Every structure is written in structure tokens, then in C-alpha cells.
């Protein structure tokens, strides 16, 4: 089994989100970047396939050189090799095109990704990648087993889950449930030392045209102050929700 884990390099969840250049660019000043939280679940699941089923695990990111520490972190967690496709990630369509090249040239049969990147919340790269490659695809995956050439995956649906059987090759877009939160791997000292010797290949990007382009950003307007209701006066809350907010 050759597993490729797609890693998106995103601002830490506590980051203050600011923009610059007349609100056209995300201001990375003071922002710490991390492995996209959903991708951590995918990576940890991949480690399990490596340890229990002898899979080889490669991580990939499409991005400029500033993303390399994030890839090194994935290597420290246990991936065997890393690939950085050397181009700015501008839209999901073009990122998926770049990743499709990596999957084809590396002959990967299992591609694990997160269900969305927490920066642009696109939720589009894995599904597009699967379509470009004509691989099977499971979105919002909360459980995955692979035996031979068959994957059994649980997909989250509203109010429950469904179990999907699909043949490899496959792209999986995962989230919590793929592994449990408590089982998420973090790099240890030995892993960090070993990661330095592991290969990080910089691949040349192919020429693709984007399908979408970010034109500007906007911050939500500050909302008015909270209306406090006295704990002894619940009727007032009900009246506000009914007459003012009109939600009950």
C-alpha cells in the first residue's frame, strides 16, 4: 500500500485573522502555522497503516518554501518522505491538479486528506483530486479500514453514519473519528532528529490555470453588545427571543 497524505499548511486555530494590502492579502505577521487539524487525523491513520500493514507513507503539500517546517513536522511524526510542489496554492482546482500529478508519478493507491482546510474552508481539493484521477472518493470520513484492494469507510451523514465499501485506488477526506483525538501523534525528540535525514523533495509545478481567484477579504462587522437579562427574570429572555429576535 502506497499512502499519500495531503497536508495543508494553515494558521493555528487561535490566530487573529488580519489582512493587508488594502484587504487583498492575509496578513501572516505573527501568525503561527500548523498542520491543518483535519490532516492530523489523516496522518495519524496513515501511521497506523504503516505500522500494522507495512504501508509506505509520503506527505505532500502544494506551497512555497515557507511550508517546509510543516512538512518536517509531518516527517517527525513518522512519514517516510515528503514532497513539496513548488508553487503558491491559489485555489482548490489548481492545487488538486498539482496533487494529481504527484499521485500519478508516485503511483499512490491510497490518498488521505482532511475534509477541509481551516483557512479557506474550501472542502474541495480531495473531491476534485479524486475526480481528476478517476479514483473512488469518500468525504467526511470517520473510520477507515483497508484489506487488500478494498476500503471500508464510515462517512458522517446527518444524524448518523453510513458504511461504504469501495475498491482502491481511493481518496479519503477525513476528520475526527478516523482516529480518536487522544491517539493523535505529536513529534517526539527522536522523530525530530530522524526527520532531518528523511527526503524532502521539491517538485516543479505543472502549468495550470486557476478556476477561481480571491479578490479581497472583509472582517465581519462588530456586533452590538450583549443584552443581559437578570437570572430572576426569565420571562424577559423569552419575550426578547419571541418579539425582538423572532426565533421562538
Amino acid at each position, binding site marked *: 500500500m502506497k499512502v499519500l497524505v495531503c497536508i495543508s499548511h494553515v494558521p493555528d486555530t487561535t490566530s487573529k485573522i488580519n489582512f493587508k494590502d488594502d484587504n487583498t492579502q492575509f496578513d501572516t505577521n505573527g501568525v503561527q502555522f500548523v498542520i491543518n487539524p483535519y490532516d492530523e487525523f489523516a496522518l495519524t491513520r496513515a501511521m497506523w497503516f504503516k505500522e500494522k500493514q507495512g504501508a509506505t507513507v509520503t506527505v505532500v503539500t502544494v506551497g512555497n518554501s515557507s511550508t517546509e517546517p510543516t512538512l518536517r513536522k509531518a516527517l517527525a511524526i513518522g512519514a517516510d518522505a515528503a514532497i513539496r510542489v513548488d508553487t503558491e496554492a491559489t485555489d482548490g482546482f489548481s492545487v*488538486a491538479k498539482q496533487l494529481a500529478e504527484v499521485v500519478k508519478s508516485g503511483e499512490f493507491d491510497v490518498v488521505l486528506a482532511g475534509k477541509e482546510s481551516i483557512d479557506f474552508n474550501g472542502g474541495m481539493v480531495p473531491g476534485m483530486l479524486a475526480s481528476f484521477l478517476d479514483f473512488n472518493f469518500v468525504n467526511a470520513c470517520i473510520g477507515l479500514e483497508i484489506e487488500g484492494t478494498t476500503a471500508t469507510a464510515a462517512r458522517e451523514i446527518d444524524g*448518523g453514519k453510513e458504511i461504504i465499501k469501495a475498491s482502491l485506488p481511493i481518496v479519503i477526506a477525513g476528520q475526527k473519528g478516523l482516529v480518536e483525538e487522544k491517539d493523535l501523534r505529536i513529534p517526539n525528540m527522536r522523530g525530530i532528529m530522524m526527520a532531518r535525514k528523511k527526503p524532502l523533495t521539491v517538485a516543479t509545478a505543472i502549468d495550470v490555470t486557476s478556476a*477561481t481567484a480571491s479578490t479581497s477579504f472583509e472582517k465581519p462587522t462588530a*456586533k452590538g453588545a450583549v443584552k*443581559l437579562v437578570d*437570572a430572576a427574570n*426569565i420571562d424577559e429572555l423569552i419575550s426578547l427571543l419571541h418579539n425582538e429576535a423572532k426565533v421562538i
Partner: protein
Amino acid sequence: MSVLIIADSSEGIFKKVAFELVSYGKKVAELLGTNTVALTINAADNDQLFKYGAEKVLCVSNDALKDFNAKSYAAVIQQAAEAVDATVVLIDSGNNGLYMGPMVAVNLNAGYTTNVVSLPNLDNGFIVKRNAFSTKAYNHTSITTDIKVIALAKNSYGIVENEVAGVVEDFNPTIAETTLSVSAVEKITGKVTIGDAEIVVSGGRGLKGPENWGMIEELAQVLGAATACSKPVSDLGWRPHSEHVGQTGKPVAANLYIAIGISGAIQHLAGINASKVKVVINTDPEAPFFKAADYGIVGDAFEVVPKLIEKLKEFKAQNA
């Protein structure tokens, strides 16, 4: 030219998001000076969609499409889009919509954007406003392809009545074979789900333990709401993971979100901010949730919630 709206149904019954999507689609079609076509798969009462502005309903009835399969559905949508020369294809942000969206886009060689919260701005191409950074900001995205696929964020446009004289036509697509199949579905029935709910009642670590969730359940029941929780609550095993909401859990875009004993950490707020009205009940007036909420009560949940249940029951009895 046309705007194609994928109107999702479950067991033949349209989901509420389908009505919102048709409402939105009608307005997009007006802006573009074109017509609306809704595509339905194994749905009953197709003429319900006329009320929200569907001028034509293409209706597919096929047993092979009984279970949702993203790839087969995406192939059907592609055929419909080609048949009606769609320039814009609209899907909802439910689990199924977001599963097939990227596939539909690739099939049609279309640009795709999700989390869209506004009508397109056509002054300078085709630009939509969308949620980004887990609702901490909006991003304006220009879609530069001829065909555009848009996933509308739930509750961002609303259901708008706009009755038209529509027609229903049968549509018979070819169904592709797939090597993927659904072997089992496990679903809680008879309970309002977070995805569907108009009101969500959510509990945090302030509730001290799973044994105290009875009042949360009861409050939800009185309001016809879904129950949810903060991340530590599901991590501790007090509640199932499926109830975890926030940046790394389920997103909530309800009309009303009631947070009880939840501090309002940035990662929690990021996932629930898209809700219209937020109420917080917390003992600590300094809890960050008070900055994000519309209404708040500084008080002990164990005193406030039972009273709230009692008063709401009275209110419901009077307004029934």
C-alpha cells in the same frame, strides 16, 4: 442558458435547504437574466418548488439512485446541466451536497466555491462573498470559468416565496456503474439533528458531568432543538462525538444557538458564529462568550435552565 438548482430530498421529502436554494437560485437567475431549473432525484410533490421560483423541475425517478452515491449523482447532474445549458449550478451545504460538489465541478470543468453567503456581484465578472477562516472573516472570490458551481451556506439567504407557473418534466439520465457502494446506514431517528435544526441547545464543561444532561435534553425537546456540546465534553466521553461543534467539530448555522456552561473559546465560536442569534448562560460574567452573544444570563445553569424550561413550557402552551 439557465441556473440549475439541485434540490435535495430525503425519502422523497424535500429538505428545507432545497427551498432556500431555489429561493436563492431564482434571484441569481434574475440577476443573470435567465431561467431557473431545479433537478430532483426520487422526490415527491415536485410542484412544491414552484412556490420558491423554480420555473422548470427536471425530475429523475430511478431505483438505481435510491441510495445517495456521490459519483452517480454527480454524473446525473452533469447530464442535466448539459441538457439545460446551465451556466450556474447550485448545491446546498449538507453532507451530500459537499460530497458531490467538487465532482460536479470537475465533470463540468467549472470553478467551484463553497460557504457562499451572498448573491453574486456581476459588476466585475462573477464574484461571491463566502465565509472563510472558520467564519472569522469573509473572502470575496471571483469565479473565472464559464460554468460556476456554488455551494450556498445554510441559512445565509433564507427561504423566500416567489411563486411562478412552473412545469415538471421527466428526465432520464444514463446511470454510471460505480465500484463504490453503501453497505449499511446507521441513523438515529426521531431526534432533531444538528445539520437540520433551526435551534441548537449546547452544553459545555460547566455542566460538570454527563448525569446533568437531562435538563439540556429537556430544554431541547421543548424547543424542538438539537443538542450539541463543546469539544472537551465529547473528549471526556460525556456526550457522543457527533455532538461536538466548533472549528474542528460540526459547524452550526442555526437560527438560535443556546450555549450553557460554555466559555466561548475562539475555536468554539469559530464553528457556531454563523448562527443568527446566540444566547449564553454562564456563571462567569467575564466568559468570552458574552462578547459573541446577543443575549446573556449571568447565572448558574442548574438554577437558570430548569426555570427556563418551565417558562418555555408555559410560553409554548399559550402560543400553541
